[in-house]
């Protein structure tokens, strides 16, 4: 069920030790949520960044500890401090292994939005993040980008750039993105799904599919495959057209939903609610499930 992503806790984070408050009043990390953590460490080995680097600050337990320190006014929001939250993938694998039931998703969201407001990033980083937010949350812009990238790949420019190591000239962020670019040559990558796919055989359910941003432009074949599987399972799949971004990426960047964009896929789906039939909302993107889970 999609719930209000950033629920307001009753307990506002104010240091009781007389130190200066680090976070602002707007949805700070909740002390109640933090207290759930008993520091047992069961989350360490399920966390991708911990298993990669072996450093406590890059584990869920360490991150919770860092948030707690800021709540207590004992630490400033330095580059080093912020970096550990930037490293967090937000995958919430830790939640599956926590015996105490920590709501890590809410905590990481809360701190990311605080950092977005209270920490001034270097100029390059700020520009990059603006670019991400502006492009990836607008499927139309992404499609245009995809066309350009398809040309980049199709005309052999990518191969040339890589062979001549021109990509090394790019800043780190862009270089990584270039390396991770999927193969866009097949048209299935950006295929738009029809508004309704009928169930195969007896219809058991109606399901609405969130098509996502990056997914629908770069790897739409996954959406198509999802629709096929759902249909095979007896679901009538509704794909509301002109869906926008679900907001997950922006949340990860620490930007909050200001309600400005009407094409947010969630709103689109809610507005298309026909009868009082219960709908299952399905998305096959990591980001969407995370949004729902929070």
């Amino acid at each position: 069920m999609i719930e209000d992503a950033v629920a307001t806790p009753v307990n506002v984070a104010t240091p009781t030790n007389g130190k200066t408050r680090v976070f602002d009043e707007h949805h700070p990390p909740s002390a109640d949520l933090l207290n759930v953590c008993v520091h047992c460490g069961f989350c360490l080995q399920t966390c991708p960044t911990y298993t990669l680097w072996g450093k406590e600050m890059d584990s869920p337990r360490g991150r919770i500890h860092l948030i707690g320190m800021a709540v207590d006014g004992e630490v400033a929001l330095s580059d080093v401090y912020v970096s550990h939250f930037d490293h967090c993938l937000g995958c919430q694998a830790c939640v599956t292994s926590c015996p105490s039931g920590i709501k890590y998703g809410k905590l990481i969201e809360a701190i990311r939005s605080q950092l977005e407001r209270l920490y001034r990033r270097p100029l390059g980083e700020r520009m990059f993040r603006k670019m991400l937010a502006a492009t990836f949350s607008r499927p139309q812009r992404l499609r245009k980008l995809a066309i350009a990238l398809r040309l980049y790949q199709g005309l052999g420019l990518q191969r040339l750039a890589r062979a001549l190591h021109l990509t090394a000239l790019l800043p780190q962020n862009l270089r990584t993105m270039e390396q991770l670019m999927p193969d866009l040559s097949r048209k299935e990558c950006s295929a738009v799904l029809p508004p309704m796919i009928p169930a195969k055989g007896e219809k058991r359910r109606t399901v609405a599919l969130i098509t996502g941003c990056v997914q629908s432009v770069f790897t739409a074949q996954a959406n198509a495959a999802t629709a096929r599987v759902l249909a095979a399972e007896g679901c009538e799949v509704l794909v509301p057209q002109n869906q926008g971004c679900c907001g997950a990426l922006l949340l990860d960047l620490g930007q909050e939903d200001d309600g400005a964009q009407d094409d947010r896929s969630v709103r689109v789906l809610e507005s298309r609610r026909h009868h009082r039939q219960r709908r299952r909302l399905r998305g096959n993107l990591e980001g969407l499930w995370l949004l729902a889970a929070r």
Partner: protein
Amino acid sequence: MDSHLISEFRSIVGDAGLVTAPEQLRTYECDGLTLFRVVPELVLLPASGEEMQAVVKLCYRERIPFVARGSGTGLSGGALPVKGGVVIGVSRMNRILDVDLANARVVVEPGVTNSAITAAVSGCGYFYAPDPSSQIVCTVAGNVAENSGGAHCFKYGVTTTYILGLEVVLSNGSLVRLGGKTLDFPGYDLVGSFVGSEGTFGIVTKVTLRIIKKPECIQTLMAAFNSSSEAGQAVSDIIASGMFPAAMEIMDRLALEAAEAAVHPNYPNCQALLLVELDGSVREVDRLMEAVGPICTKCGAWELRLAKSDAERMAVWKGRKAAFAAVGRISPNYLVQDGVIPRTALPRVLGEIDRLSAEAGLRVANVFHAGDGNLHPLVLYDRRIAGQEERAMVLAEDILRLCVEAGGSITGEHGIGEEKKHFMPVMFSEADLDAMQRLREAFDPYGLCNPSKMFPGTDVTYQRPIAYEPHPIEKAGLAQRY
């Protein structure tokens, strides 16, 4: 810490192996026991035995005390840093180096997790027997330091039973190889002496351990009782009948509530649950299980459930293993205690714990390895209510004293660490403690390895000597210092 020194450390372990920023060092200030916190000067994470040795040599040169750390899940404060010292973590040394199934030996780096060892060999029908509840995260280095046990150690033994060889860096930076792949190395049992030394003898860089064959058939029986003493009686009767179960665990009502809330193992709704696990050949287990049921019923069990498949058994054990941390769901704070009593004293001691907790006005959830008398009373309290934390600590200590009076031990698995060092005189005489100190001095004459743990009166604040500055009169050549 001196920036030159930090650069020297950096040249050994690189940025990937160094933690220097104050906010980062704070995340290392405690392990699974949050009651005590000390911020280290530096954290070092070597990626190999060579880097480990170089780091320790540098610590030795500068006489900097160090505390080893695995995953930091210990419950006695063993990885608590020493003021003025550094933490040396093994989390980046996490490779399995050699698996020899024919001889049932595995060689691993110290940062490999306990369950990773089993995972590496379970496909071929083997497993690594010591199974502490934190096995998905805790490292072999930690297991060696604390001589960890687990639910199945009643039949299968504890960590020391399975360690054949250790490669160790001593406090002066020298590398020694204790034991090895074959059995019975001539000389003193240095491996046996090292296991359980809680990081006070040196740091491990390699572990050679034994794995064992998984049994053909394993079955777990859950028996629901109206009281822990009835369950305890059933345990005694099962042993008296000559059976040797692989594990026997008892959880009381509060612990069951917590476990149910955490992982939904679907336990029967009872005052005390007994888990009995039997393993062996199919015929043997079937036959013995037929006998266990009636024994439990005779002692008052009103429901018996048998878990036969691996999936069913895993669900049963997941609840038991999550019980500690799960208690966090039914109480804002808790203290987990670790004491041992002779099994025959179980009914009396449980009754006493009930009485003590009623007097203190606090709830105590009980989880214990009934087979070997290892109790884990979880004292529940709310820190926000004035006086509760203090009362909880006093109650926990009273329970420990009770264990010693009953002929047991102040720690079955978690170790002494920081938490119980002042308790050692309750269990050991001065001569006993002196003998232990002699062994420690033989391994670490410089007092650099985890110096403030295990023994009373060892609180250490290490202060680096201030560089000597000659007096102006000395500089002028008018006086000499001798």
